[in-house]
């Protein structure tokens, strides 16, 4: 079933009776060439690109819950390519380019909206860093504009510019940054993979990974054993637990990140605005809700819900930056389980077990990476070589200390990012 404007018109006039399910609900086969554990954004995108770019189709995605029930459906949907360090920079640039062609590629409206991101700064030192980061972005071929205070004021007239602690000095503006509809991204990739022959197996929890003579031979699941030649672990916050099934310990600690949404309002915030010093960022969804969040709760957790101190902190930071939001009523808050790596950058690599691959460590920033990560991980799984834009996400960089990507410069240790 192809989507088009004409089709919507026709369905609208004929009672919307012609729409069909976006993907099949198949029974597991006893054997596949490739298994992807985890039906989040990254797992679905991996399956999609394996089928699309590497001509493979005997693939299954194993999802313990339902498609889109993990972080891919819980995030605040910011999509950007404003990273600073080699390794990350070329990767996120690659991912943003895939985003820009994604809707046509998937024939699916993921509501990708390049409304621009502004990262505020509040001191001369921070301005210097913004200029340096802007230069890295431009060198990478992406877009960046450093705005002074007047420039920000023109775009964001509603901020409190004279906050005593953090007066606004200016902002790093990334016009191609923006947001997308998170669920639609999961559904679009799921539909794209399914239509290329990938089996999406929901309610199928992986409970064991079978290894023989140092080689992966299949997995145990809640829907029975399944054999495979290659297996990819793409389970975000659950990475440590699934890798433990293969006897591995990972450099990952699972933390909680909360987010909040208000009642629907008339359009008032046109961009994505980040207030790093206050640990606060905000955008407005197409439904009108103000979507905002802050930092981690900062303790290991699998609860997928946070505690009140961070909720209070985020509200306070929001009020400090844009007092007008005090009038909006918060409707909902929720949390997601973040796979935090020591240096804050991801891992996309082989493991010491032949045929077993690992994709994790996305921390709080993996939504923007969905197309890029699926694309380069599919390349790695299909060819056994790193993709040119993803050569530095090695699993062993922590052990040997070579090639750490600590964007924030806070140190390569847990609980610092």
């Amino acid at each position, binding site marked *: 079933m192809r989507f088009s404007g004409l089709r919507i018109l026709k369905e609208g006039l004929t009672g919307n009776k012609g729409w069909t399910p976006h993907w099949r609900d198949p029974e597991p086969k006893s054997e596949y060439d490739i298994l992807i554990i985890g039906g989040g954004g990254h797992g679905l995108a991996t399956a999609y690109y394996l089928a699309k770019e590497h001509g493979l189709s005997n693939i299954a995605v194993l999802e313990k819950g339902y498609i889109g029930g993990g972080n891919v459906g819980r995030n605040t949907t910011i999509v950007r390519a404003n990273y600073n360090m080699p390794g990350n920079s070329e990767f996120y640039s690659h991912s943003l380019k895939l985003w820009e062609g994604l809707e046509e590629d998937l024939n699916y409206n993921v509501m990708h909206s390049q409304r621009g991101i502004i990262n505020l700064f509040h001191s001369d030192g921070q301005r210097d860093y913004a200029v340096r980061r802007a230069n890295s972005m431009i060198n990478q071929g992406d877009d960046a504009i450093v705005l002074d205070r007047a420039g920000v004021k023109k775009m964001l007239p509603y901020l409190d510019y004279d906050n005593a602690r953090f007066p606004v000095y200016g902002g790093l503006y990334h016009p191609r940054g923006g947001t997308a509809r998170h669920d639609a991204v999961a559904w679009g990739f799921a539909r794209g993979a399914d239509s290329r022959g990938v089996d999406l197996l929901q309610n199928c929890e992986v409970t064991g990974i079978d290894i023989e003579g140092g080689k992966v031979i299949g997995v145990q699941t809640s829907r029975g054993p399944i054999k495979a030649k290659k297996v990819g672990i793409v389970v975000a916050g659950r990475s440590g637990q699934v890798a433990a099934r293969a006897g591995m310990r990972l450099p990952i600690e699972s933390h909680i990140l909360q987010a909040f949404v208000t009642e629907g309002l008339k359009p008032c915030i046109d961009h994505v605005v980040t207030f790093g010093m206050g640990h606060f960022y905000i955008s407005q969804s197409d439904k009108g809700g103000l979507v905002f969040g802050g930092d981690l709760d900062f303790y290991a957790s699998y*609860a997928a819900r946070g505690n009140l*101190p961070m909720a209070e902190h985020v509200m306070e930071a929001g009020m400090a930056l844009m007092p007008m939001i005090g009038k909006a009523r918060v409707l909902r808050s929720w949390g997601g389980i973040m796979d935090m790596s020591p240096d804050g950058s991801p891992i996309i690599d082989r493991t010491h077990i032949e045929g077993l691959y690992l994709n994790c460590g996305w921390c709080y920033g993996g939504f923007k990476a969905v197309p890029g990560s699926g694309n380069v991980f599919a390349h790695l799984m299909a060819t056994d070589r790193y993709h040119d834009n993803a050569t530095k996400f090695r699993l062993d960089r922590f052990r040997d200390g070579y090639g750490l990507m600590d964007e924030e410069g806070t140190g390569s240790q847990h*609980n610092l990012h």
Partner: protein
Amino acid sequence: MRITCPICGERDSREFSYRGADVALHRPDPEAGEAAWDDYVHLRDNPAGETRDMWYHEGGCGAWIVVTRNTVTHEVIGSELAAEVAR
């Protein structure tokens, strides 16, 4: 989530800062080698369920404590002074 300090009793979690898993109490010998240090600094059991981690009672008595808690329910089960655990 409220945290019980063995000295001060049950307190608001904002009084504490978090260090991470209690591996911090098992620092390897400086010459123990790369694998032991990788284990200590980076690799984690990261359990979903009961865990033991280190908290510092910054806004209270200043003690380091080892808290036993559940990472799925946020229940705080017990706590001990790190100085006693390490002994």
